[in-house]
Protein backbone atom coordinates (compact mmCIF):
# COMPACT_ATOMS: atom_id res chain seq x y z
CA UNK A 1 0.00 0.00 0.00
CA UNK A 2 2.65 2.42 1.08
CA UNK A 3 5.03 1.48 -1.71
CA UNK A 4 2.70 2.63 -4.47
CA UNK A 5 2.09 5.84 -2.62
CA UNK A 6 5.76 6.67 -2.31
CA UNK A 7 6.44 5.64 -5.90
CA UNK A 8 3.95 8.29 -6.91
CA UNK A 9 5.54 10.70 -4.49
CA UNK A 10 9.05 10.25 -5.77
CA UNK A 11 8.28 10.02 -9.49
CA UNK A 12 10.00 13.33 -10.01
CA UNK A 13 8.43 15.36 -12.84
CA UNK A 14 11.84 16.74 -13.70
CA UNK A 15 13.09 13.33 -14.70
CA UNK A 16 10.05 12.82 -16.93
CA UNK A 17 10.93 15.78 -19.13
CA UNK A 18 13.33 14.76 -21.91
CA UNK A 19 16.70 16.34 -21.26
CA UNK A 20 20.21 16.15 -22.61
CA UNK A 21 21.96 13.14 -21.14
CA UNK A 22 24.62 15.28 -19.48
CA UNK A 23 22.00 16.96 -17.40
CA UNK A 24 20.46 13.65 -16.48
CA UNK A 25 23.80 12.28 -15.43
CA UNK A 26 24.31 15.33 -13.27
CA UNK A 27 20.92 14.80 -11.71
CA UNK A 28 21.76 11.19 -10.96
CA UNK A 29 25.05 12.19 -9.38
CA UNK A 30 23.28 14.79 -7.34
CA UNK A 31 20.75 12.24 -6.10
CA UNK A 32 23.58 9.94 -5.10
CA UNK A 33 25.32 12.74 -3.20
CA UNK A 34 22.08 13.70 -1.48
CA UNK A 35 21.39 10.14 -0.44
CA UNK A 36 24.92 9.73 0.88
CA UNK A 37 24.61 12.95 2.84
CA UNK A 38 21.22 11.97 4.28
CA UNK A 39 21.87 8.33 5.11
CA UNK A 40 25.52 8.05 6.11
CA UNK A 41 25.42 9.71 9.55
CA UNK A 42 22.48 7.63 10.77
CA UNK A 43 23.95 4.45 9.33
CA UNK A 44 27.33 5.05 10.95
CA UNK A 45 25.72 5.80 14.31
CA UNK A 46 23.43 2.79 14.12
CA UNK A 47 25.97 0.27 12.87
CA UNK A 48 28.65 1.55 15.23
CA UNK A 49 26.64 1.53 18.42
CA UNK A 50 23.83 -0.96 17.90
CA UNK A 51 25.18 -3.66 15.58
CA UNK A 52 28.88 -3.61 16.47
CA UNK A 53 28.17 -4.33 20.17
CA UNK A 54 26.28 -7.44 19.11
CA UNK A 55 29.34 -8.58 17.16
CA UNK A 56 31.59 -7.70 20.11
CA UNK A 57 29.39 -9.77 22.41
CA UNK A 58 29.59 -12.79 20.12
CA UNK A 59 33.38 -12.37 19.82
CA UNK A 60 34.19 -11.93 23.52
CA UNK A 61 31.88 -14.77 24.48
CA UNK A 62 34.39 -17.20 22.94
CA UNK A 63 37.14 -16.13 25.31
CA UNK A 64 37.96 -16.44 28.95
CA UNK A 65 38.42 -12.77 29.75
CA UNK A 66 38.38 -10.77 32.97
CA UNK A 67 38.67 -7.27 31.57
CA UNK A 68 42.43 -6.86 31.89
CA UNK A 69 45.26 -7.74 29.56
CA UNK A 70 45.03 -9.15 26.05
CA UNK A 71 42.13 -11.20 24.79
CA UNK A 72 44.01 -14.44 24.10
CA UNK A 73 42.49 -17.25 26.12
CA UNK A 74 40.24 -18.72 23.45
CA UNK A 75 37.82 -21.25 24.94
CA UNK A 76 35.36 -21.82 22.08
CA UNK A 77 31.85 -22.52 23.28
CA UNK A 78 32.95 -23.24 26.82
CA UNK A 79 31.13 -20.19 28.23
CA UNK A 80 27.87 -21.38 26.68
CA UNK A 81 28.31 -24.85 28.19
CA UNK A 82 28.99 -23.15 31.50
CA UNK A 83 25.72 -21.24 31.23
CA UNK A 84 23.82 -24.41 30.40
CA UNK A 85 25.19 -26.04 33.57
CA UNK A 86 24.93 -22.97 35.80
CA UNK A 87 21.99 -23.54 38.18
CA UNK A 88 21.81 -19.84 39.02
CA UNK A 89 21.45 -18.88 35.38
CA UNK A 90 18.85 -21.61 34.77
CA UNK A 91 16.98 -20.22 37.79
CA UNK A 92 17.28 -16.73 36.37
CA UNK A 93 15.78 -17.94 33.08
CA UNK A 94 12.91 -19.54 34.98
CA UNK A 95 12.28 -16.38 37.00
CA UNK A 96 12.31 -14.28 33.86
CA UNK A 97 9.84 -16.62 32.19
CA UNK A 98 7.62 -16.51 35.30
CA UNK A 99 7.63 -12.69 35.19
CA UNK A 100 6.83 -12.78 31.47
CA UNK A 101 4.00 -15.27 31.98
CA UNK A 102 2.54 -13.29 34.87
CA UNK A 103 2.68 -10.10 32.81
CA UNK A 104 0.64 -11.73 30.06
CA UNK A 105 -1.78 -13.52 32.38
CA UNK A 106 -2.46 -10.63 34.75
CA UNK A 107 -1.53 -7.35 33.11
CA UNK A 108 -3.33 -8.04 29.84
CA UNK A 109 -6.81 -8.74 31.27
CA UNK A 110 -6.32 -5.96 33.80
CA UNK A 111 -5.31 -3.32 31.28
CA UNK A 112 -8.05 -4.47 28.91
CA UNK A 113 -10.69 -4.13 31.63
CA UNK A 114 -9.38 -0.76 32.72
CA UNK A 115 -9.13 0.51 29.15
CA UNK A 116 -12.74 -0.49 28.50
CA UNK A 117 -13.70 1.31 31.70
CA UNK A 118 -11.76 4.46 30.86
CA UNK A 119 -13.18 4.47 27.36
CA UNK A 120 -16.60 5.14 28.89
CA UNK A 121 -17.92 8.62 28.90
CA UNK A 122 -17.75 9.88 32.48
CA UNK A 123 -16.68 12.97 34.34
CA UNK A 124 -13.01 13.03 35.21
CA UNK A 125 -12.10 10.63 32.45
CA UNK A 126 -9.22 12.65 31.03
CA UNK A 127 -7.85 13.18 34.54
CA UNK A 128 -7.98 9.42 35.09
CA UNK A 129 -6.06 8.77 31.90
CA UNK A 130 -3.41 11.26 32.91
CA UNK A 131 -3.03 9.68 36.34
CA UNK A 132 -2.93 6.12 35.10
CA UNK A 133 -0.25 6.83 32.52
CA UNK A 134 1.97 8.82 34.89
CA UNK A 135 3.97 5.97 36.51
CA UNK A 136 5.05 4.80 33.06
CA UNK A 137 7.15 7.93 32.50
CA UNK A 138 8.89 7.82 35.88
CA UNK A 139 12.49 6.61 35.67
CA UNK A 140 12.30 2.94 36.73
CA UNK A 141 15.19 3.63 39.10
CA UNK A 142 13.05 6.22 40.90
CA UNK A 143 10.11 3.81 41.02
CA UNK A 144 12.35 1.14 42.49
CA UNK A 145 13.84 3.37 45.20
CA UNK A 146 10.34 4.58 46.06
CA UNK A 147 8.95 1.08 46.44
CA UNK A 148 11.97 -0.24 48.26
CA UNK A 149 11.33 2.41 50.92
CA UNK A 150 7.62 1.61 51.06
CA UNK A 151 8.16 -2.14 51.29
CA UNK A 152 10.50 -2.04 54.28
CA UNK A 153 9.23 -3.96 57.33
CA UNK A 154 6.56 -1.81 59.06
CA UNK A 155 6.94 0.71 56.25
CA UNK A 156 4.19 2.40 54.29
CA UNK A 157 2.73 -0.72 52.68
CA UNK A 158 2.54 -2.60 55.98
CA UNK A 159 0.98 0.36 57.75
CA UNK A 160 -1.65 0.83 55.07
CA UNK A 161 -2.50 -2.88 55.23
CA UNK A 162 -2.87 -2.66 59.00
CA UNK A 163 -5.08 0.39 58.62
CA UNK A 164 -7.27 -1.56 56.20
CA UNK A 165 -7.54 -4.47 58.63
CA UNK A 166 -5.15 -6.66 56.64
CA UNK A 167 -2.44 -6.61 59.30
CA UNK A 168 -2.38 -10.41 59.39
CA UNK A 169 -1.33 -10.54 55.74
CA UNK A 170 1.78 -8.44 56.23
CA UNK A 171 4.88 -10.19 54.91
CA UNK A 172 8.59 -9.62 54.58
CA UNK A 173 8.01 -8.45 51.02
CA UNK A 174 11.64 -8.12 50.03
CA UNK A 175 13.17 -10.78 52.28
CA UNK A 176 10.88 -13.80 51.90
CA UNK A 177 12.50 -15.91 49.19
CA UNK A 178 9.17 -17.43 48.18
CA UNK A 179 7.53 -14.07 47.75
CA UNK A 180 10.14 -11.67 46.50
CA UNK A 181 9.73 -12.47 42.80
CA UNK A 182 6.03 -11.63 43.06
CA UNK A 183 6.78 -8.43 44.95
CA UNK A 184 8.96 -7.44 42.02
CA UNK A 185 6.13 -8.30 39.67
CA UNK A 186 3.71 -6.04 41.56
CA UNK A 187 6.10 -3.10 41.33
CA UNK A 188 6.66 -3.78 37.62
CA UNK A 189 2.90 -3.85 37.15
CA UNK A 190 2.50 -0.54 38.97
CA UNK A 191 5.00 1.04 36.62
CA UNK A 192 3.93 -0.47 33.30
CA UNK A 193 0.17 -1.05 33.47
CA UNK A 194 -0.48 2.50 32.28
CA UNK A 195 1.29 1.83 29.01
CA UNK A 196 -1.03 -1.10 28.24
CA UNK A 197 -4.08 0.94 29.16
CA UNK A 198 -3.08 3.87 26.96
CA UNK A 199 -2.16 1.61 24.05
CA UNK A 200 -5.50 -0.21 24.27
CA UNK A 201 -7.39 3.06 24.65
CA UNK A 202 -5.78 4.28 21.45
CA UNK A 203 -6.92 1.03 19.83
CA UNK A 204 -10.45 1.47 21.18
CA UNK A 205 -10.69 4.94 19.68
CA UNK A 206 -9.99 3.40 16.31
CA UNK A 207 -13.06 1.18 16.43
CA UNK A 208 -15.99 2.79 14.60
CA UNK A 209 -18.89 3.52 16.93
CA UNK A 210 -21.32 2.50 14.17
CA UNK A 211 -20.28 -1.14 14.52
CA UNK A 212 -21.14 -1.23 18.20
CA UNK A 213 -24.34 0.71 17.66
CA UNK A 214 -25.43 -1.62 14.89
CA UNK A 215 -24.85 -4.62 17.12
CA UNK A 216 -26.71 -2.96 19.99
CA UNK A 217 -29.69 -2.24 17.73
CA UNK A 218 -29.66 -5.87 16.65
CA UNK A 219 -30.17 -6.73 20.30
CA UNK A 220 -26.67 -7.58 21.42
CA UNK A 221 -26.02 -7.10 25.13
CA UNK A 222 -23.12 -4.83 26.13
CA UNK A 223 -21.12 -7.89 27.14
CA UNK A 224 -21.73 -9.48 23.72
CA UNK A 225 -20.68 -6.29 21.97
CA UNK A 226 -17.47 -6.22 24.00
CA UNK A 227 -16.77 -9.91 23.58
CA UNK A 228 -17.65 -10.31 19.90
CA UNK A 229 -16.84 -6.92 18.40
CA UNK A 230 -14.61 -4.76 20.54
CA UNK A 231 -12.05 -7.32 21.67
CA UNK A 232 -11.60 -8.98 18.25
CA UNK A 233 -11.14 -5.56 16.65
CA UNK A 234 -8.53 -4.74 19.28
CA UNK A 235 -6.54 -7.76 18.06
CA UNK A 236 -3.71 -5.84 16.37
CA UNK A 237 -3.28 -3.58 19.41
CA UNK A 238 -3.26 -6.53 21.80
CA UNK A 239 -0.73 -8.37 19.65
CA UNK A 240 1.61 -5.37 19.63
CA UNK A 241 1.22 -5.02 23.40
CA UNK A 242 2.09 -8.69 23.87
CA UNK A 243 5.14 -8.27 21.69
CA UNK A 244 6.44 -5.22 23.53
CA UNK A 245 5.65 -6.73 26.93
CA UNK A 246 7.46 -10.00 26.28
CA UNK A 247 10.54 -8.24 24.89
CA UNK A 248 10.43 -5.87 27.89
CA UNK A 249 10.00 -8.69 30.41
CA UNK A 250 12.89 -10.69 28.96
CA UNK A 251 15.22 -7.80 29.77
CA UNK A 252 13.88 -6.68 33.14
CA UNK A 253 16.70 -5.06 35.09
CA UNK A 254 16.38 -1.64 36.75
CA UNK A 255 13.58 -2.37 39.20
CA UNK A 256 14.79 -5.82 40.24
CA UNK A 257 18.38 -4.64 40.61
CA UNK A 258 17.49 -1.79 42.94
CA UNK A 259 14.72 -3.56 44.88
CA UNK A 260 16.49 -6.83 45.61
CA UNK A 261 19.63 -7.12 43.49
CA UNK A 262 18.33 -10.52 42.44
CA UNK A 263 18.25 -11.76 46.03
CA UNK A 264 17.87 -12.78 48.72
CA UNK A 265 19.97 -15.75 47.71
CA UNK A 266 19.14 -15.85 44.03
CA UNK A 267 15.39 -15.94 44.55
CA UNK A 268 14.59 -12.96 42.32
CA UNK A 269 17.50 -13.19 39.86
CA UNK A 270 16.53 -12.43 36.28
CA UNK A 271 18.56 -13.02 33.14
CA UNK A 272 19.88 -9.48 32.80
CA UNK A 273 20.56 -8.98 36.52
CA UNK A 274 22.62 -12.16 36.45
CA UNK A 275 24.41 -11.06 33.30
CA UNK A 276 25.47 -7.84 35.03
CA UNK A 277 26.36 -9.64 38.24
CA UNK A 278 28.52 -12.23 36.52
CA UNK A 279 29.90 -10.13 33.70
CA UNK A 280 30.42 -6.82 35.40
CA UNK A 281 30.46 -7.18 39.15
CA UNK A 282 32.50 -10.39 39.12
CA UNK A 283 34.39 -9.46 35.94
CA UNK A 284 33.79 -12.77 34.16
CA UNK A 285 33.41 -10.69 31.04
CA UNK A 286 33.68 -13.60 28.63
CA UNK A 287 30.93 -15.42 30.50
CA UNK A 288 28.81 -12.28 30.81
CA UNK A 289 28.93 -11.63 27.07
CA UNK A 290 27.94 -15.25 26.44
CA UNK A 291 24.89 -14.61 28.64
CA UNK A 292 24.20 -11.43 26.65
CA UNK A 293 24.24 -13.46 23.43
CA UNK A 294 21.85 -15.99 24.97
CA UNK A 295 19.45 -13.22 26.02
CA UNK A 296 19.68 -11.73 22.52
CA UNK A 297 18.83 -15.16 21.18
CA UNK A 298 15.77 -15.34 23.43
CA UNK A 299 14.52 -11.96 22.17
CA UNK A 300 15.35 -12.78 18.58
CA UNK A 301 13.75 -16.23 18.48
CA UNK A 302 10.65 -14.91 20.20
CA UNK A 303 10.40 -12.03 17.71
CA UNK A 304 10.78 -14.31 14.72
CA UNK A 305 8.24 -16.83 15.95
CA UNK A 306 5.83 -14.16 17.05
CA UNK A 307 6.02 -12.30 13.79
CA UNK A 308 5.69 -15.52 11.86
CA UNK A 309 2.63 -16.75 13.71
CA UNK A 310 0.90 -13.81 15.37
CA UNK A 311 1.81 -10.51 13.75
CA UNK A 312 1.64 -11.90 10.21
CA UNK A 313 -2.02 -11.02 10.07
CA UNK A 314 -1.38 -7.35 10.77
CA UNK A 315 0.10 -6.69 7.38
CA UNK A 316 0.30 -2.99 8.13
CA UNK A 317 2.63 -3.65 11.06
CA UNK A 318 6.08 -2.33 10.28
CA UNK A 319 7.69 -5.00 12.43
CA UNK A 320 6.25 -7.65 10.17
CA UNK A 321 7.78 -6.04 7.15
CA UNK A 322 11.09 -5.76 8.89
CA UNK A 323 11.72 -9.45 9.26
CA UNK A 324 9.94 -11.02 6.32
Amino acid at each position, binding site marked *: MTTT*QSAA*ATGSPVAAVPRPSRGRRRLRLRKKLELTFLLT*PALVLFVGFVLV*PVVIAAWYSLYNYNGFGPLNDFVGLHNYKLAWNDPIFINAVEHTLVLTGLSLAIQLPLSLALALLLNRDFRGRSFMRLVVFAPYVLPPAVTAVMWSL*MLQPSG*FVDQVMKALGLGGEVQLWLANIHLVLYTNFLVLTWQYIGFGIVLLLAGLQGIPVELKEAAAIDGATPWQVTRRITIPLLGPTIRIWVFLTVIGSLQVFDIVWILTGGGPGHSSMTMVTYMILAGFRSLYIGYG*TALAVIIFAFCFVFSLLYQRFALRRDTAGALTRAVE
Partner: protein
Amino acid sequence: MMAAATATRRRQTLQQRRWTIMPATYLIAIVLVGITLAPLLFVAVDGFRTNADINSSPIGVPHPWVLSNYTSILGTAPFWQFLGNSALVAVVATTMAVVLGSMAAFALSRYQFPGREAIFTLFISGLLFPLGVAALPLYLLLQHLGLLDNQLGLAVVEAAFALPVTMLIMRGFMRAIPGELEDAALVDGAGKLRFFVRILVPLSRPALVTVSLLAFVGSWNTYLLPLLIFTTPSHFTLPLGVATYQTQFSTNTAAILAFTAIAAIPALGVFMFAERYLVAGAAGAVKG
Protein backbone atom coordinates in the same frame (compact mmCIF):
# COMPACT_ATOMS: atom_id res chain seq x y z
CA MET B 1 -41.42 8.49 13.18
CA MET B 2 -40.64 4.88 13.99
CA ALA B 3 -36.92 5.50 13.83
CA ALA B 4 -37.20 8.50 16.08
CA ALA B 5 -39.22 6.53 18.60
CA THR B 6 -36.73 3.68 18.76
CA ALA B 7 -33.91 6.15 19.03
CA THR B 8 -35.60 7.81 22.00
CA ARG B 9 -36.27 4.47 23.61
CA ARG B 10 -32.69 3.44 23.03
CA ARG B 11 -31.41 6.62 24.55
CA GLN B 12 -33.61 5.99 27.60
CA THR B 13 -32.30 2.46 28.12
CA LEU B 14 -28.78 3.69 27.65
CA GLN B 15 -29.40 6.33 30.26
CA GLN B 16 -30.83 3.78 32.69
CA ARG B 17 -27.85 1.57 32.10
CA ARG B 18 -25.54 4.49 32.68
CA TRP B 19 -27.06 5.13 36.11
CA THR B 20 -26.52 1.56 37.22
CA ILE B 21 -23.00 1.31 35.80
CA MET B 22 -21.69 4.66 36.92
CA PRO B 23 -21.22 3.98 40.66
CA ALA B 24 -19.15 0.88 39.88
CA THR B 25 -17.14 2.81 37.32
CA TYR B 26 -16.38 5.54 39.80
CA LEU B 27 -15.51 3.08 42.52
CA ILE B 28 -12.98 1.29 40.31
CA ALA B 29 -11.69 4.62 39.06
CA ILE B 30 -11.11 5.87 42.60
CA VAL B 31 -9.32 2.68 43.64
CA LEU B 32 -7.13 2.93 40.54
CA VAL B 33 -6.26 6.56 41.19
CA GLY B 34 -5.52 5.68 44.82
CA ILE B 35 -3.13 2.86 43.96
CA THR B 36 -1.39 5.03 41.38
CA LEU B 37 -1.08 8.20 43.42
CA ALA B 38 -0.64 6.90 46.97
CA PRO B 39 3.02 5.92 46.52
CA LEU B 40 3.84 9.28 44.94
CA LEU B 41 2.04 11.17 47.70
CA PHE B 42 3.65 9.03 50.38
CA VAL B 43 7.13 9.81 49.07
CA ALA B 44 6.45 13.51 48.69
CA VAL B 45 4.75 13.91 52.09
CA ASP B 46 7.17 11.74 54.04
CA GLY B 47 9.99 13.86 52.67
CA PHE B 48 8.68 16.46 55.11
CA ARG B 49 9.08 14.18 58.14
CA THR B 50 11.92 13.62 60.52
CA ASN B 51 13.46 10.15 60.65
CA ALA B 52 12.05 9.59 64.13
CA ASP B 53 8.57 10.44 62.86
CA ILE B 54 8.93 8.05 59.89
CA ASN B 55 9.97 5.21 62.14
CA SER B 56 7.05 5.72 64.52
CA SER B 57 4.26 6.40 62.00
CA PRO B 58 4.95 6.49 58.26
CA ILE B 59 1.34 7.23 57.29
CA GLY B 60 -0.81 10.19 58.17
CA VAL B 61 0.14 13.82 58.56
CA PRO B 62 3.81 14.56 59.32
CA HIS B 63 4.48 15.67 62.88
CA PRO B 64 6.36 17.96 62.81
CA TRP B 65 6.58 19.20 59.22
CA VAL B 66 10.21 19.84 58.39
CA LEU B 67 11.57 21.44 55.26
CA SER B 68 15.16 20.56 55.98
CA ASN B 69 15.20 17.32 53.95
CA TYR B 70 14.22 19.16 50.80
CA THR B 71 16.24 22.29 51.40
CA SER B 72 19.42 20.38 52.18
CA ILE B 73 19.12 18.45 48.89
CA LEU B 74 18.33 21.52 46.84
CA GLY B 75 21.11 23.43 48.57
CA THR B 76 23.93 21.04 47.72
CA ALA B 77 25.75 20.35 44.48
CA PRO B 78 25.04 16.62 43.78
CA PHE B 79 21.36 16.99 42.93
CA TRP B 80 21.97 19.84 40.50
CA GLN B 81 24.90 17.98 38.97
CA PHE B 82 22.78 14.88 38.39
CA LEU B 83 20.00 17.00 36.94
CA GLY B 84 22.41 18.88 34.68
CA ASN B 85 24.02 15.67 33.47
CA SER B 86 20.68 14.04 32.73
CA ALA B 87 19.55 17.14 30.84
CA LEU B 88 22.79 17.35 28.86
CA VAL B 89 22.73 13.68 27.89
CA ALA B 90 19.04 13.74 27.03
CA VAL B 91 19.29 16.90 24.92
CA VAL B 92 22.34 15.70 22.98
CA ALA B 93 20.89 12.20 22.48
CA THR B 94 17.49 13.53 21.41
CA THR B 95 18.96 16.07 19.00
CA MET B 96 21.22 13.51 17.37
CA ALA B 97 18.52 10.87 17.08
CA VAL B 98 15.90 13.24 15.72
CA VAL B 99 18.12 15.14 13.26
CA LEU B 100 19.93 12.09 11.87
CA GLY B 101 16.82 9.92 12.06
CA SER B 102 14.69 12.45 10.14
CA MET B 103 17.34 12.85 7.46
CA ALA B 104 17.53 9.11 6.98
CA ALA B 105 13.75 8.77 7.14
CA PHE B 106 13.49 11.41 4.41
CA ALA B 107 15.91 9.46 2.21
CA LEU B 108 14.02 6.24 2.86
CA SER B 109 10.58 7.72 2.21
CA ARG B 110 10.92 10.22 -0.64
CA TYR B 111 13.71 8.76 -2.77
CA GLN B 112 13.57 5.72 -4.99
CA PHE B 113 16.72 3.61 -5.07
CA PRO B 114 17.79 -0.02 -4.97
CA GLY B 115 18.33 -1.35 -1.45
CA ARG B 116 15.97 1.14 0.14
CA GLU B 117 13.80 -1.44 1.88
CA ALA B 118 16.87 -3.41 2.96
CA ILE B 119 18.34 -0.37 4.68
CA PHE B 120 15.03 0.38 6.37
CA THR B 121 14.79 -3.23 7.54
CA LEU B 122 18.30 -2.98 8.93
CA PHE B 123 17.35 0.05 11.00
CA ILE B 124 14.11 -1.51 12.21
CA SER B 125 15.94 -4.67 13.26
CA GLY B 126 17.42 -2.43 15.96
CA LEU B 127 14.10 -2.77 17.80
CA LEU B 128 15.19 -6.31 18.62
CA PHE B 129 18.43 -5.23 20.29
CA PRO B 130 17.43 -3.55 23.52
CA LEU B 131 19.97 -1.28 25.18
CA GLY B 132 19.71 -3.20 28.43
CA VAL B 133 20.84 -6.45 26.90
CA ALA B 134 23.61 -4.75 24.93
CA ALA B 135 24.96 -2.97 28.03
CA LEU B 136 27.92 -5.23 28.64
CA PRO B 137 29.28 -5.18 25.04
CA LEU B 138 28.57 -1.44 24.93
CA TYR B 139 30.72 -1.05 27.99
CA LEU B 140 33.54 -2.86 26.18
CA LEU B 141 33.04 -0.73 23.05
CA LEU B 142 33.13 2.55 24.98
CA GLN B 143 36.19 1.31 26.80
CA HIS B 144 37.93 0.77 23.43
CA LEU B 145 36.90 4.24 22.29
CA GLY B 146 38.06 5.86 25.52
CA LEU B 147 34.53 7.10 26.20
CA LEU B 148 33.96 5.48 29.58
CA ASP B 149 32.85 7.85 32.33
CA ASN B 150 31.93 10.40 29.64
CA GLN B 151 28.47 11.93 29.28
CA LEU B 152 28.81 12.36 25.53
CA GLY B 153 29.67 8.68 25.13
CA LEU B 154 26.40 7.84 26.87
CA ALA B 155 24.48 10.35 24.73
CA VAL B 156 25.81 8.89 21.47
CA VAL B 157 24.79 5.38 22.50
CA GLU B 158 21.33 6.51 23.52
CA ALA B 159 20.91 8.35 20.23
CA ALA B 160 21.83 5.21 18.32
CA PHE B 161 19.29 3.15 20.23
CA ALA B 162 16.59 5.80 19.70
CA LEU B 163 17.06 5.70 15.92
CA PRO B 164 14.84 2.67 15.09
CA VAL B 165 11.68 4.07 16.69
CA THR B 166 12.43 7.57 15.39
CA MET B 167 12.78 6.29 11.84
CA LEU B 168 9.74 4.05 12.08
CA ILE B 169 7.50 6.95 13.07
CA MET B 170 9.14 9.62 10.87
CA ARG B 171 9.14 7.50 7.74
CA GLY B 172 5.49 6.60 8.22
CA PHE B 173 4.63 10.26 8.66
CA MET B 174 6.69 11.54 5.74
CA ARG B 175 5.26 8.94 3.38
CA ALA B 176 1.76 10.12 4.13
CA ILE B 177 2.48 13.66 2.94
CA PRO B 178 1.13 14.05 -0.60
CA GLY B 179 3.61 13.90 -3.48
CA GLU B 180 1.97 16.93 -5.14
CA LEU B 181 3.56 19.19 -2.55
CA GLU B 182 6.95 17.91 -3.47
CA ASP B 183 6.26 18.21 -7.20
CA ALA B 184 5.15 21.80 -6.71
CA ALA B 185 8.32 22.65 -4.81
CA LEU B 186 10.48 21.02 -7.46
CA VAL B 187 8.69 22.82 -10.27
CA ASP B 188 9.30 26.08 -8.42
CA GLY B 189 13.00 25.30 -8.64
CA ALA B 190 13.62 24.13 -5.10
CA GLY B 191 15.99 21.21 -4.73
CA LYS B 192 14.98 18.09 -2.85
CA LEU B 193 16.99 19.05 0.20
CA ARG B 194 15.42 22.48 0.26
CA PHE B 195 11.99 20.86 0.03
CA PHE B 196 12.99 18.72 3.04
CA VAL B 197 14.18 21.61 5.19
CA ARG B 198 11.62 24.23 4.21
CA ILE B 199 8.45 22.20 3.73
CA LEU B 200 8.66 18.63 4.96
CA VAL B 201 10.25 19.34 8.34
CA PRO B 202 7.75 22.06 9.32
CA LEU B 203 4.89 19.83 8.16
CA SER B 204 6.21 16.93 10.24
CA ARG B 205 6.07 18.87 13.48
CA PRO B 206 3.57 16.60 15.29
CA ALA B 207 5.66 13.53 14.50
CA LEU B 208 8.85 15.37 15.41
CA VAL B 209 7.46 16.30 18.81
CA THR B 210 6.44 12.69 19.44
CA VAL B 211 9.79 11.16 18.48
CA SER B 212 11.67 13.85 20.40
CA LEU B 213 9.69 13.08 23.54
CA LEU B 214 10.16 9.35 23.17
CA ALA B 215 13.91 9.80 22.74
CA PHE B 216 14.08 12.28 25.61
CA VAL B 217 12.12 10.15 28.06
CA GLY B 218 14.09 7.07 27.03
CA SER B 219 17.36 8.82 27.68
CA TRP B 220 16.16 10.46 30.89
CA ASN B 221 15.14 7.10 32.36
CA THR B 222 18.18 5.01 31.40
CA TYR B 223 19.83 3.44 34.40
CA LEU B 224 21.79 0.34 33.42
CA LEU B 225 24.34 1.82 31.04
CA PRO B 226 25.17 4.82 33.28
CA LEU B 227 25.56 2.32 36.13
CA LEU B 228 28.25 0.52 34.14
CA ILE B 229 30.15 3.37 32.55
CA PHE B 230 30.20 6.14 35.17
CA THR B 231 32.67 6.04 38.03
CA THR B 232 32.94 9.75 38.88
CA PRO B 233 29.92 10.79 41.00
CA SER B 234 29.85 14.26 39.44
CA HIS B 235 29.13 12.60 36.05
CA PHE B 236 26.12 10.60 37.30
CA THR B 237 22.71 11.03 35.72
CA LEU B 238 19.63 11.45 37.90
CA PRO B 239 18.41 7.78 38.04
CA LEU B 240 21.91 6.61 38.89
CA GLY B 241 22.26 9.43 41.40
CA VAL B 242 19.03 8.50 43.18
CA ALA B 243 19.93 4.83 43.40
CA THR B 244 23.43 5.62 44.63
CA TYR B 245 22.11 8.13 47.16
CA GLN B 246 19.87 5.42 48.59
CA THR B 247 22.75 3.02 49.19
CA GLN B 248 25.00 5.79 50.54
CA PHE B 249 22.57 7.27 53.02
CA SER B 250 20.60 4.13 53.78
CA THR B 251 20.00 5.17 57.39
CA ASN B 252 18.64 8.61 56.54
CA THR B 253 15.27 7.51 55.16
CA ALA B 254 13.80 11.00 55.24
CA ALA B 255 16.55 12.37 53.01
CA ILE B 256 16.14 9.51 50.51
CA LEU B 257 12.39 10.12 50.39
CA ALA B 258 12.90 13.79 49.72
CA PHE B 259 15.50 13.07 47.06
CA THR B 260 13.26 10.52 45.35
CA ALA B 261 10.33 12.94 45.36
CA ILE B 262 12.41 15.69 43.78
CA ALA B 263 13.86 13.26 41.24
CA ALA B 264 10.36 12.30 40.14
CA ILE B 265 9.35 15.90 39.43
CA PRO B 266 11.13 16.52 36.09
CA ALA B 267 9.70 13.35 34.52
CA LEU B 268 6.21 14.08 35.80
CA GLY B 269 6.52 17.72 34.73
CA VAL B 270 7.48 16.82 31.16
CA PHE B 271 4.70 14.29 31.19
CA MET B 272 2.00 16.76 32.29
CA PHE B 273 2.82 19.04 29.44
CA ALA B 274 3.44 16.37 26.82
CA GLU B 275 0.96 13.64 27.68
CA ARG B 276 -0.95 13.78 24.43
CA TYR B 277 2.19 13.51 22.34
CA LEU B 278 3.36 10.51 24.31
CA VAL B 279 -0.04 8.93 23.87
CA ALA B 280 0.23 9.68 20.15
CA GLY B 281 3.57 7.88 20.21
CA ALA B 282 1.98 4.88 21.85
CA ALA B 283 -0.80 4.96 19.27
CA GLY B 284 1.80 5.30 16.52
CA ALA B 285 3.36 2.07 17.70
CA VAL B 286 0.06 0.36 16.96
CA LYS B 287 -0.34 1.76 13.51
CA GLY B 288 3.32 1.22 12.67
